[in-house]
């Protein structure tokens, strides 16, 4: 098992200590780690286990229960297509299918260049602007199948510009 860098150990210890005055803070700790690193690998779960005394199996059980937590790193851009009812009745499934087709990945997967992760969202509370697509927190309103290509293209171009 790969070992964590000392800076990561320090930071995770800090996160755990941040919540030490709260009762049963596991969810808070995991949320913070997820936000900080984008995923919660096993080594980190082991560390949290040893810092909190909670068995690794319980931490792993929690991580795999909640869809917000991820065991693997996500892409640089996380595309969330809302499949809430309001979005669904307005065709968001077709939008999701289009993203899936153009990126060549299924929902939950990440492209091999680690640029995009495609996720299904269950209502982001943006029903008024359905179908909604959220990319790294930015919400795109009323996305139609025909917009999908240009949205992806926009990020690809931005990425190329940064690399040049």
């Amino acid at each position, binding site marked *: 098992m790969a070992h964590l860098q000392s800076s990561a150990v320090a930071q995770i210890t800090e996160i755990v200590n941040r919540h030490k005055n709260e009762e049963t803070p596991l*969810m808070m700790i995991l949320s913070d780690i997820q936000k900080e690193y984008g995923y919660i690998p096993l080594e980190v779960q082991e560390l949290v286990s040893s810092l909190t005394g909670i068995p690794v199996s319980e931490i792993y059980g929690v991580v795999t229960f909640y869809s917000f937590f991820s065991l693997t790193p996500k892409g640089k851009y996380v595309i969330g297509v809302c499949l*809430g009812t309001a979005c669904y009745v307005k065709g968001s499934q077709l939008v999701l299918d289009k993203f899936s087709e153009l990126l060549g990945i299924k929902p939950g997967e990440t492209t091999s260049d680690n640029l995009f992760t495609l996720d299904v*969202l269950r209502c982001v*509370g943006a029903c*008024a602007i*359905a179908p909604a697509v959220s990319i790294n927190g930015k919400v795109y309103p009323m996305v139609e199948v025909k917009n999908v290509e240009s949205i992806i293209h926009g990020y690809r171009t931005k990425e190329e510009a940064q690399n040049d």
Partner: protein
Amino acid sequence: MIKIKTSEELINKQKECASCLDSKFKGLDGKRAIVVCGGTGCLSADSHTILERMHELIKEHHLEDKVTANIVGCFGFCSQGPFVKIFPEETLYTKVKVDDVTEIFEKDILGGEIVERLLFVDPQTKEKARKQHDINFYKLQKRDIALRGNADINPESIDEALGDGSFLALNKALHMTPQQVIDEVLKSGLRGRGGAGFPTGRKWQFAHDVDSEEKYVVCNGDEGDPGAFMDRSIIEGNPINVIEGMMIEGYAIGAKNGYFYIRAEYPVAVKRLENAIKQCEELGLLGDNILGTDFSFRCHIRLGAGAFVCGEETALLNSIEGQRGMPRPRPPFPAVKGLWGKPSVINNVETLANVPYILLNGADKYAAIGTEKSKGTKVFALGGKVNNVGLVEVPMGVTLRQLIYDIGGGIPNNKKFKAIQTGGPSGGCLTEKDLDTPIDYDNLVAAGSMMGSGGAIVMDEDNCMVDVAKFYMTFICDESCGKCSPCRIGTKRCLEILTKITEGKGTMEDLEELKSLAEVIKSNSLCGLGQTAPNPILSTMASFYDEYLAHIQDKKCPAHVCKNLFQYKIIKEKCVGCGMCARNCPANTIEKTDEIPAGRDPKMPMRIHLIHPENCVKCGLCMNNCRFGAIIKE
């Protein structure tokens, strides 16, 4: 910051803040105020940039003393956003773009002239509405209880909340005994806004009556119902109102700590709530000996992490306790043994947002609103196939017809109304025959649905109800916690059968099995999620049995949604032979025949086209690209 230590200090501070707010909204000393909508829809349409731009312009013109600009919660009329409202005239600009800001600023703020082109135009009368209450969408609404302050005050400023009257209800409550507070809530007839509508006062009474050193109040903000965003807007628009409701509850049942459980998907709500709690603590309105009384109270925030089942109250408690969100068997009920084994009351965000109004204005005034058994107002997230999509607060008792047609402005594109789904995955579909039913808890249940948290999704003739049932089953299957076997396995089986039916492989036996499964899941499941999981199936089967039959017996999807059960077809008479369809067909399954389109010169290359259904992937590109309306689904 100076702490508010007594009732008198609160009342003085309140007066001071109220006059500030007054001057802001009433334009005393020639002041102007700009508020910009901060709802999700408007933010996604750059309302934050609009606000930034306004700030820049104020600075450029050195008007910092005269003009203020801030974000507010949500105007609710999301399909018309972003909104910019100018005080004291209360001019409401709709669909504002970043490019419009300079014009608004120069014409209105500097010139005192209204930018006519940005006013709302009534689609029927074509008349322009200058103020919010001139718009039909708002006319039937009563947005001053749960959505109080939502489109006026700055949700990040406790002074504005105080100016709006926050904490006066708490102050009043602290002068009553806890039992008197509970009696007042009982008398108001307030029922839980999260689902089944259990009387809030009775819930409080249970917890009040249990003898325990430590008790907890928990606010359920895990709004997971796909198609609902009431709680989000309430917290984002006026977090302090919810905190005050929670404190009153804490006082009533004897709790010292309150926990907000909020979806992690709502970062803005979390941020505003954190900020509001901090401001309350700084003023001494949260902490020890609040307003000089023996009442001490603290608020804590816990985040959900993407599990719908955590809206179920015992699953929510497990989640706060750092466990998988799997519901607990009951009894023991949370009011007896809840969070960390202590008596706990779990109330939904909207429920708590109602509480300050009740205490401040009295139970009688509150109970005067609504129907016999459902009092007050209800916030709905009106969405789907309706013109005026948005967040509405209406008195209980308005009819579905009023909701869809008067407030919602009817169905777009002259399509035919088919159903309105309320109550989310636990609810059901209501149809034409139910439209004149006054909305309240009991009527919706009697009609085969439920209030739920307040999602109201309108469906039109283009929506396939079997597909809708499948959609909800997919959701429930994904979100089933997996603890009890009827829900874990039963919902999966339902989904498999529905999938079979939508693929045209269903049999009448499948339909029987589906019905029997639905009954088993309903009667055998552990928690409310499981027990209500089959509702979308049962309700669509009850109202749209013919659609199920069409899928099974005729192998047709009447709404042309289920891909295996309809075909694209070119109407010969309308085809001009342009070939756009064939050029756009990704499956290369459109053939150019030898037939010459009617009235065309045979020397020209145009020929009638034909779709070979065998290879068609049903992408619909041919139909979208045909400019002559020659392609139909059947």
